[in-house]
């Protein structure tokens, strides 16, 4: 049984098609990144899964239950962090958690949840009207974890969090995944998806343009590694005979090589050293998800954003 399955899911608002003919499957226990620029239809898709909106065509099941007809059963077993939500200003953090525990008929300890999402006991006694965006987000995540859900649906979970909070969010997602919880989360911030996801889907203008693992996406785009060699003097070299090197450019005393795979690194370095020049630095970079994302969503060539990796 899939955690999420949509069949030809379509949502129109008047003449505008927000989601078109979406077929998506998220397996049980899987961490699934849902990617796309703002306005691509990610939130609409999530709203359809949560029964906040009703599809124009097609259907969706969540944990094997119809998202519309059995929405209550679905909500008993999932935790959500929706887009554009707000809390009840007059209630304290702790009151939010106990209200959620009551509604879900669960027996979670509010203190344990507070600790898990990084809210102090003093924070919990305050009314949430005075919470920052980050604290609000943490509390809402705490509420989502109530009742040990089988699936977490998180819409832009890191929005409003500082870098520290983002990394904590990632840890929470990982630890939930380790317990067998499936996590479906959307983002337009790519590094977050890359770090935790088993698979990603990329959405663009209401349509799914790619579904794969991160590695799979890289490979499908010929996106191996790149390596930049800094040398004391640039030799007159031809790399066409070196296996795995697909491109070479020279800029000053730096030689930048495109590699089909990591195995090409050693032969390329040997090739340079055999020419009698001294290597002063080696940098390698993988083509980032950012590149792939740009490829899929702009339709033009990948704009490469370097991610420095120690050589």
């Amino acid at each position, binding site marked *: 049984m899939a955690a999420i399955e949509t069949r030809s899911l379509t949502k129109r608002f008047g003449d505008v098609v927000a989601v078109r003919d979406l077929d998506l499957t998220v397996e049980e226990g899987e961490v699934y990144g849902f990617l796309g620029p703002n306005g691509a239809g990610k939130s609409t898709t999530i709203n359809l899964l949560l029964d906040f909106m009703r599809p124009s065509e097609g259907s969706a099941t969540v944990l094997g239950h119809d998202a519309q007809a059995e929405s209550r059963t679905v909500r008993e077993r999932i935790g959500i962090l929706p887009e554009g939500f*707000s809390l009840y200003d007059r209630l304290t953090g702790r009151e939010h958690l106990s209200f959620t525990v009551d*509604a879900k008929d669960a027996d979670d300890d509010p203190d344990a949840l507070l600790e898990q999402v990084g809210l102090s006991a003093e924070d919990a006694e305050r009314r949430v009207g005075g919470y920052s965006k980050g604290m609000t987000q943490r509390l809402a995540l705490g509420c989502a974890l109530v009742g040990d859900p089988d699936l977490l649906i998180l819409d832009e979970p890191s929005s409003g969090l500082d870098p520290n909070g983002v990394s904590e969010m990632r840890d929470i997602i990982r630890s939930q995944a380790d317990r067998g919880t499936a996590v479906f989360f959307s983002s337009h911030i790519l590094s977050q998806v890359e770090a935790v996801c088993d698979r990603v889907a990329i959405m663009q203008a209401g349509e799914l343009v790619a579904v794969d693992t991160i590695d799979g996406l890289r490979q499908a785009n010929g996106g191996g590694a790149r390596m930049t060699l800094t040398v004391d003097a640039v030799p007159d070299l031809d790399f066409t005979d070196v296996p795995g090197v697909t491109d070479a450019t020279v800029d000053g005393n730096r030689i930048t090589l495109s590699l089909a795979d990591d195995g090409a690194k050693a032969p390329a370095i040997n090739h340079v050293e055999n020419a009698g020049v001294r290597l002063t630095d080696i940098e390698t970079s993988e083509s980032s998800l950012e590149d792939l994302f740009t490829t899929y969503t702009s339709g033009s060539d990948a704009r490469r954003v370097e991610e420095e990796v120690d050589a």
Partner: protein
Amino acid sequence: MSWSVVARKDFEDAARSKMLWAITALFVVFTAGTVYAFDRIMEQTATTALQTLTLPAGLVIPITALVVAYLAIAGERETGSIKLLLGLPHTRRDVMVGKLVGRAGTVVVATVVAFAVTTAVLVGLYGTVPLVEYLLLTLLTALFSAVFVGIAVGISAATATRSRAMAAAVGVFVVFQILWDYVPMGIYYLIEGSIPTGGPLPPWYFLAVILNPKNAYSTASALFLPESLTGSMAERVAGEVPFYLQDWFALGILIAWLVVPVALGYVRFERADLG
């Protein structure tokens, strides 16, 4: 019972925000004050004093109920807290019922407390209270409170924003409290070409009057109180008094006002896309 979680939270919110205490105090002042004031200006018995209670109730309950409940759902839609609420195992019907019960509970509690305080005033003035009539009037008034909470919750469910909910609530208030008095007269003018005078009037004229929940409430009180609007109606109706001008029919009108707006609001809410 999922709706009861929603209802309890709503009621606790009202108590927490002091709204419950404020409207209870308001109701006490209006009901006990009216009984006292009538006693000063005219000869009253405990029973006729009871009758005068429908006046302040008809005046103060509609506006209070509308204020208490018009944001019940529209407010949560506008801020987005409805997404957390509906993300829990609550259906939209649970939310609707819970909001109706929670907010009606607030107004009903204020009503019951105000009536209880008024009992003390009645006992002080007349030494006695007609208990059965008194309890029935309390029940009827509680129903009347629930009617206006229901109208407000129905409006709130049918609208997506605070401002629209407020416009609709103000509209309801103006129509029932101010404009309605002119409706039967206007219809009469359109049909007869003249303004109704003191003489006998056709039965539908009075039906138009009691279709207003406020008038249905005071008419229905004649089921157990000696005199009411209907008493004077029966004398002014041209010909036979039809069934729809009987006191019990007014009670039916009141119940319809409780059910229909909530049902219509629910239908719209159930189909709405919550952005």
